[in-house]
């Protein structure tokens, strides 16, 4: 699977309150949450981004709360994937459970700018900056997580195990 889109670049330690502020958590409706995606990091993001765009952030993306509303909001807004040097632990886990593709890459952040056109090969983990003709590599996904994705997420994985 190849994901291709325009990059929105954010800084380090983007927290879950910035991704989806708690004032909107009186619902878990994905469409409602999507309206406020990244609102406290960039209030214009939701109105200006297009489906298929890519979020690129510096280290520790998704720190803070365990709210699954964060990957839900990002996915429902139409973001194709998130690339960062590292992700906060609970966000990382939630993203896999939700089926939001995320890629850990130590060097992509420095080599990609806001507005660049980027293509990610989810199979090989190769990230290509089409605007600047540069290439980066994402960390391989641990085998167990690959199995979760192959099964269609955590709940499908459990159903498959028959427990």
């Amino acid at each position, binding site marked *: 699977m190849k994901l291709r889109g325009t990059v929105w670049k954010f800084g380090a330690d983007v927290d879950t309150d910035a991704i989806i502020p708690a004032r909107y958590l009186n619902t878990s409706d994905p469409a409602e949450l999507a309206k406020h995606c990244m609102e406290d990091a960039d*209030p214009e993001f939701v109105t200006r981004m297009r489906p298929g765009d890519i979020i690129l952030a510096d280290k520790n993306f998704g720190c803070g709360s365990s709210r699954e509303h964060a990957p839900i909001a990002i996915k429902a807004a139409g973001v194709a994937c998130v690339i960062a040097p590292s992700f906060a632990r609970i966000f990382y886990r939630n993203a896999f459970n939700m089926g939001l593709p995320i890629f850990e890459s130590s060097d992509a952040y420095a080599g990609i700018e806001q507005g660049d056109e980027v293509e990610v090969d989810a199979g090989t983990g190769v990230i290509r900056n089409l605007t600047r003709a540069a290439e980066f590599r994402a960390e391989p996904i641990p085998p167990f997580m690959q199995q979760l994705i192959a099964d269609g997420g955590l709940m499908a994985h459990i159903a498959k195990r028959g427990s």
Partner: protein
Amino acid sequence: MTITEKILAAHAGADRVEPGQIINVWVDVALGNDITAPIAIREFRKAGAERVFDRERVVLVPDHFAPNKDIASAEQCKVLREFAKEQDLAHYFETGEMGVEHALLPEQGLVVPGDVVIGADSHTCTYGGLGAFSTGVGSTDLAAAMITGEAWFKVPESMKFVFRGEPGPWVDGKDLILYTIGRIGVDGALYRAMEFTGPAIDRLGMDDRLTMCNMAIEAGGKSGIIAPDDVTRGYVDGRALREPVYYTSDPDARYAAVLEFDCAEIRPQVAFPHLPSNTRPIDEVGEVVIDQVVIGSCTNGRITDLRRAARVLEGNRVARYVRCLVIPATQEIYRQALREGLFEVFLDAGCAVSTPTCGPCLGGHMGILARGERAVATTNRNFVGRMGHPESEVYLANPAVAAASAVLGRIASPEEVVS
């Protein structure tokens, strides 16, 4: 093995586990609240599940937007209530019994030393203060555990933090953990278990231990833990609903890093906006005028915290145009504070005392900040917009500093108020 590895091994049915290994463990408690449980319940139904794995071990606490702050929140709390009725859950806490979940579960003996606990709330790591392995997960992980009674984990590496020396009079567990986060950063313990140890930890009471482990997540930690001892036994005796198991780390246990801190050098800490790691000693805060003070939350809403705040507020008045909100974290703490006369102190000082709720900590309700306003809070996060308007600011501190700040209308040391 470390205490964390021992607990995980015991719950995986293994003799030993290694960091990095992916294991399946059975969980002693699976917890959800009014924000996260509605999604978990939806997933539970989507999976075609009919009964939870154990009606005694699935715990639901509507505490974030409860007492219901608006119609949408009321609907979310109703989802929990209906599910609790349908599944005949033993531990569902209605407003009136409800407390802030991470203060409530230890108090009610629902979590005991040696447990594995998952909760769809990032501050589930609090129970490490009892010597349990506990960690926050998302709603889907909670749904899976509600059905199967199990969860998968990558065994974390452990980091050891050794606290030596005697802390100063106004330095408490909050300062030790804020100082630690300030030193290592908000991802300084990413994916790792933080083990707090040393003579200064041995002397800490349970409330301070819970405060420290509560904020492990603010350093990116998977969990925080303190090996159980006589303090733990004293707390657990008479509360525990199940038999505790007391684990400790082996002398040859392996750590990814060992850090040593001298508590004598740690002053009361204030975390400036907008990260918990942005800490300064109280002596270096400068002139920061404030609009609101919040004393409460799963971090600092326990009786010890209220006593410390009362000691500073006694005989003083909250500064003009400053709101000081005191929120005991559970009904039992509320009653205890009332009995001890702390409410008199708070009311005389001009504080508003609230029924238990997470409320303002996450910008939910009961104390939202307007544009440009500043709050000193005993809570755990000071992210952009955390307590209200995206242009408001939250400064994190211990209860005594928060109380002193309420009196002087600027961030202040208790030493300036209490002679």
